[in-house]
């Protein structure tokens, strides 16, 4: 018996129902009713997901394959078929539990955070809709259905970033996110087209088994597989905010904080990593593409971390931190450690959701203030939030035994071992980024919770958040602590349970020699040292009370994010705007399109003006017209007879 597994569609459908009910009917409802619908649908979805996973493990025990079930044909044209087919394998299991579990916690948190906001029903309707699309994305068994989820989460991201749509910056940020993602989606679609052209199908199972039969492209060769893999990766850079398309994510912080936690940290932005991991066979057959993924990931991890060092907005720090951590995940995938990449995806979902929600709690306590230079000394006032934030910080910095210690360590270790990709260099950069990660996170903690109070006590009434916000924080804090323990035995020379769990998907990794284990221990030690170094530097600079100094030199460049936004504005947006305004609008639209339409109207008027003079009102002229008409009819009818006769006369 596998009731949920056979009706897998029910897991994504529940949030869709919740979204529809709240969105269509919820306008006048009290918050309690909206809560019941939104939490009920996501909670049930989570429960069903747990049950589906339990059933799947039994199914896998018996069959040793992924569970794939077609529900109905969606698009059928010739030999092309894209069905509503859902798939459950070990990779999906991880994603499914992260999405429904963390999503549910963030829904609970939102009931507290959004309690006094307008558009309460609208917020939850969007949030549920997001859950629906995200679940479609992770459950899809073919590229087309995955793309539906992919676009759907992009839409929800747009709607939620622009949730406070009366604020121009929020509306602009929503548009920016949407448009930048379009660029990535363009590459993604081209990748899908190329895959369909090559393999005549878009079903994951069929495509990947066919890819597996092909010989891999050689390093440096741009074969079909490499191009397809790179095009898919373009899509991933858009959705997962990698260089060069990362610019939308920091701006996306205009959305409400739970949205930043759910969409722009824990789930949606990891979709790119998921796609790369899902298509891992394609990537392992395209070493060039893998190398590109690794370099982009490593560069992003470093680059975003440097920007994060100096930001003053608490959410901006976390946003750049997210970009940086996503870079780590791609680095892991790029060096072939897909399991480690997904592992980091999961732990990141826990601790980054925790950090964002804690930041939201701080902002809530400060009455909307986001600038860390206007905080300070909050430790004793909001103890629960502060402890949770500290847990998240220790976790992301990578201290033993918190989650990121294991996942980041796994990625860095795999990178170190990957000699053909200059693994040692990538490792060095990644390690330096880890130092910076530790630095900016502890800087955030010190600026926010310690030092003197840099706000007006009488104006800001600092208060701890209600239970429905702090309880999800505590749960996430615990998860951030224990989320990495699957890999704990590996440290002691045993098995890494997480990688082993995913091995049916990614295959069993090469068996490393005994000496590798001691090397891993050494590298773990180095990583701990790096985290400690970041901590110490942060304490030196900010631990003893800090003043916001003038921004000069390197600090200024970092603070302005390397002027990348300005560069894009000048190189891409500006010329496009010029082209749109001066060519597409004033020439093509006004000249060609409006010209054609107006020209037809003017022409018709002119013809009518000329011809109307035949309508003289004179009965006898009408009589002549009747005669002429009769003659014409006569001529047409008798033309076949008259024609040779006339020619005969002329000749």
């Amino acid at each position, binding site marked *: 018996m596998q009731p949920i597994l056979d009706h897998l569609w029910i897991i994504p459908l529940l949030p869709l129902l919740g979204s529809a009910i709240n969105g269509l009917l919820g306008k006048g409802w009290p918050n309690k009713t909206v809560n019941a619908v939104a939490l009920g649908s996501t909670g049930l979805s989570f429960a069903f997901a747990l049950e589906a996973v339990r059933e799947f493990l039994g199914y896998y025990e018996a069959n040793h394959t992924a569970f794939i079930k077609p529900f109905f044909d969606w698009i059928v044209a010739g030999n092309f078929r894209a069905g509503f087919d859902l798939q459950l394998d070990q990779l999906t299991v991880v994603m499914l539990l992260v999405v429904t579990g963390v999503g549910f916690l963030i829904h609970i948190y939102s009931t507290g955070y959004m309690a006094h906001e307008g558009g309460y029903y609208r917020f939850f309707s969007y949030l549920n809709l997001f859950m629906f699309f995200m679940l479609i994305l992770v459950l899809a068994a073919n590229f087309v259905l995955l793309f539906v989820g992919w676009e759907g989460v992009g839409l929800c991201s747009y709607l939620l970033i622009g949730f406070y749509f009366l604020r121009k910056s929020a509306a602009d940020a929503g548009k920016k996110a949407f448009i930048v993602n379009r660029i990535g989606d363009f590459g993604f679609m081209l990748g899908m087209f190329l895959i369909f052209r090559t393999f005549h199908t878009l079903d994951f199972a069929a495509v990947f088994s066919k890819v597996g039969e092909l010989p891999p492209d050689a390093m440096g060769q741009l074969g079909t597989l490499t191009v397809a893999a790179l095009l898919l990766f373009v899509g991933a850079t858009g959705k997962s905010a990698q260089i060069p398309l990362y610019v939308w994510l920091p701006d996306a912080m205009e959305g409400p904080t739970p949205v930043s936690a759910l969409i722009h940290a824990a789930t949606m932005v990891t979709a790119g990593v998921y796609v790369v991991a899902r298509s891992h066979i394609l990537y392992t057959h395209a070493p060039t593409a893998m190398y590109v993924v690794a370099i982009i990931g490593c560069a992003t991890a470093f680059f975003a971390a440097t920007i994060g060092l100096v930001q003053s907005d608490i959410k901006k720090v976390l946003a750049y931190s997210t970009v940086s951590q996503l870079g780590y995940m791609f680095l892991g995938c790029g060096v072939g450690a897909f399991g480690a990449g997904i592992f980091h995806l999961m732990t990141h979902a826990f601790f980054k959701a925790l950090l964002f929600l804690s930041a939201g709690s701080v902002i809530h306590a400060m009455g909307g203030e986001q600038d860390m230079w206007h905080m300070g000394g909050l430790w004793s006032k909001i103890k629960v939030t502060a402890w949770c934030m500290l847990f998240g910080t220790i976790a992301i910095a990578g201290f033993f035994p918190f989650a990121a210690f294991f996942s980041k360590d796994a990625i860095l270790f795999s990178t170190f071992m990957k000699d053909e990709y200059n693994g040692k260099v990538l490792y060095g950069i990644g390690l330096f980024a880890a130092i910076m990660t530790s630095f900016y996170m502890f800087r955030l903690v010190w600026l926010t919770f310690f030092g003197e109070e840099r706000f007006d006590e009488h104006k800001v009434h600092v208060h701890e958040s209600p239970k429905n916000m702090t309880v999800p924080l505590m749960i996430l804090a615990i998860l951030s602590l224990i989320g990495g323990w699957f890999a704990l035995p590996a440290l002691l020379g045993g098995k890494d349970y997480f990688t082993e769990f995913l091995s049916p998907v990614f295959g069993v990794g090469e068996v490393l020699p005994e000496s590798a284990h001691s090397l891993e221990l050494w590298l773990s030690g180095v990583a701990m040292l790096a985290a400690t170094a970041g901590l110490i530097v942060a304490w030196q600079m900010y631990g003893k009370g800090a003043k916001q100094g003038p921004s000069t030199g390197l600090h200024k460049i970092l603070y302005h994010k390397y002027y990348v936004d300005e560069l894009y504005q000048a190189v891409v947006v500006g010329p496009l705007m010029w082209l749109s305004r001066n060519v597409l609008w004033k020439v093509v639209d006004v000249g060609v399109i409006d010209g054609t339409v107006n020209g037809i109207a003017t022409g018709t008027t002119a013809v009518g003006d000329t011809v*109307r003079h035949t*309508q*003289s*009102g*004179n*009965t*006898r002229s009408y*009589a*002549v017209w009747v*005669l002429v008409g009769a003659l014409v009819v006569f001529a047409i009818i008798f033309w076949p007879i008259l024609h040779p006769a006339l020619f005969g006369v002329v000749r």
Partner: protein
Amino acid sequence: MVPTNYYLILSAILFGLGIVAFVFKRNIITIFMAIELMLNAVNLAFVAFSQSLGKTDGEVFVLFVIVVAAAEAAVGLGIIILTARNRRSLNVERVDLLKL
């Protein structure tokens, strides 16, 4: 027996006279009579063909034409009488209210 051609030529002459009168005369009654003349020229041609081909189709058609002509005469004369009453004239040149 008179050859069919003679009838046809007579029919064509009558029809041509009708056209000329229809286009050039100004009196409504005359124009009306010109139309009747053309109808009857056609009738003549029908009967002539009917006779020469030994079929009755043409004669049947003539009956139809006569019926239509009668109806037309009834409506047309009605219009003419109203026009004459309103304008105190039968000159078509002065009936030009349909001008745009």
